[in-house]
């Protein structure tokens, strides 16, 4: 039970309502939720969430210049409370907001335009200390940390970053990940160094990577022992990408990752192999109008890869270890205008992201 913390100056407007039912209805009517019930963001709860990161409520974590908006610790805390988070998730959310508001991510355009949501990929020891699921049903429900951290980002995008569905966010289709889109990399099944170590954070550290992702496309190959047919299957699933530059996320299921590691492939080998396979001929691209100009004689033998370079393929290992599945997450249609950003957690942040005792995950319970 949270105790009412020390008096804290919170600047958000206060709203007085009769009871919790009235709160739920008021927030729904104002378009402040994702459509699901929320936890009422009382000043007491918000204060406790702000205290959990040891920062001032007014501290600005990031800015959106295109909207003349800032994201403060307080607004993050209000939305995290609403999402049902625990206060121990706050430091991870602070790092996530830092990542989202770095210029290369292009938070403004990816929030209001096109069918993507920021996919959060958490890696390193924080996955365990905060109770994130990296195993069975990694994109699915059933895990408090994944569900509520992803949801906190969603509510923040709606309430602070201009992503109000239908009003400003006029995405044609949206996707289910726009409710919550938070996965963790498996430490148990990853045969290689963690994902963040490919992206500038020390291998022993913890990090969150944000990637503006469409819905995952699954690549099933349950029949192959050797890596080649599996890589061909995954490369097929990469083809619906937009061919506009930028990156692509490949979540290797544990069985697929093991098949590759067994054959001696490094993660760089995997990237290189996918890069060589995931390509379309110019004639294919031209038939869909993806490239302009007159057809050329060598269109059938000239190829374009889904991303500009092998290193633009972000390889993560996650998921259950019983079936041969991987997943591809294509990027935002703007391609090179939004890049994945990785943000490390410092020692203090890591120390704050500890749930004690550890919450048993559904798979441990069963």
């Amino acid at each position, binding site marked *: 039970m949270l105790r009412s913390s020390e008096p804290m100056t919170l600047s958000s407007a206060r709203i007085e309502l009769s009871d919790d039912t*009235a709160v739920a209805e008021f927030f729904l009517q104002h378009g402040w939720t994702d459509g699901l019930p929320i936890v009422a963001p009382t*000043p007491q709860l918000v204060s406790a969430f702000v205290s959990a990161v040891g920062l001032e409520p007014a501290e600005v974590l990031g800015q959106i210049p*295109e909207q003349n908006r800032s994201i403060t610790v307080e607004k993050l805390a209000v939305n995290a409370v609403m999402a049902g988070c625990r206060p121990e998730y706050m430091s991870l959310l602070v790092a996530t907001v830092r990542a989202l508001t770095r210029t290369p991510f292009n938070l*403004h*355009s990816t929030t209001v335009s096109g069918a993507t949501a920021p996919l959060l990929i958490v890696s390193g020891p924080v996955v365990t200390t905060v109770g994130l699921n990296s195993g069975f049903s990694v994109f699915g429900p059933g895990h408090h940390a994944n569900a509520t951290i992803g949801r906190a980002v969603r509510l923040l995008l709606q309430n602070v970053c201009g992503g109000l569905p239908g009003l400003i966010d006029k995405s044609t289709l949206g996707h289910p990940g726009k409710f919550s889109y938070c996965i963790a990399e498996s430490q148990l099944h990853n045969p290689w160094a963690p994902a963040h170590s490919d992206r500038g954070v020390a291998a022993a550290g913890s990090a969150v990577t944000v990637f503006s992702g469409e819905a995952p496309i699954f690549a099933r190959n349950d029949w192959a022992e050797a890596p080649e047919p599996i890589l061909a299957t995954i490369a097929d699933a990469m083809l619906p990408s937009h061919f506009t530059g930028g990156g692509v996320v490949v979540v290797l299921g544990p069985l697929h990752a093991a098949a590759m590691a067994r054959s001696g492939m490094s993660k760089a080998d995997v990237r290189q192999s996918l890069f060589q396979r995931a390509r379309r001929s110019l004639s294919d691209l031209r038939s869909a109008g993806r490239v302009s100009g007159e057809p050329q004689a060598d269109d059938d033998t000239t190829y374009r890869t889904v991303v500009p370079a092998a290193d633009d393929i972000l390889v993560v290992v996650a998921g259950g270890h019983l079936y041969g599945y991987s997943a591809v997450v294509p990027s935002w249609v703007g391609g090179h205008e939004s890049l994945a950003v990785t943000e490390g957690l410092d020692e203090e942040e890591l120390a704050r992201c500890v749930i004690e005792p550890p919450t048993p995950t559904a798979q441990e319970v069963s």
Partner: protein
Amino acid sequence: MTTHVTVLDPTETGARSSSTELVLPPADLNGVRLGLLDNGKPNSDRFLSLLAERFSADDAVLSRTLRKPSIGRLAPVPLVEELVEACDLVVTGVGDCAGCCSCSVQDGIAVERRGVPTVVIVTTEFLTTARIASTAAGVPDYPFTVIDHPLGSLTPSQLAQRADVAMAQIRARLAAR
């Protein structure tokens, strides 16, 4: 059951407390140096060029045609400053998507803040987005020039028609100043 609950507003509107004053546009286009800031959306360049022809018919002089390096981001400051230096009236657009529209609005208001009047072109479907963006920039009543959505798939003759509609709105705005 709680009988009384205090909760906090989760939103941040970004609205400026101080408003930005718009610069009075010229009453007469004769000799006015025109600047175009193309946001890079498909057909924006063609539309703006057709619009410039109509400005020329009213004796304005096309001084700069610049294209933003990125559709969904603000125009770099040097680009804005070049337009302000070389032009008496700047047209930005076309805001026909949520990401680009907010940015073209902010670009126009950045030019206004430096003392040069602007025309911001948006499509009907994104007028709400444009209004939210201009409110955030301190100009809640910005006089947008609005053309029918869509833009990207139009033929040359349809584009010319849209340019006529836009020019009629601009002439009416100048006459009413």
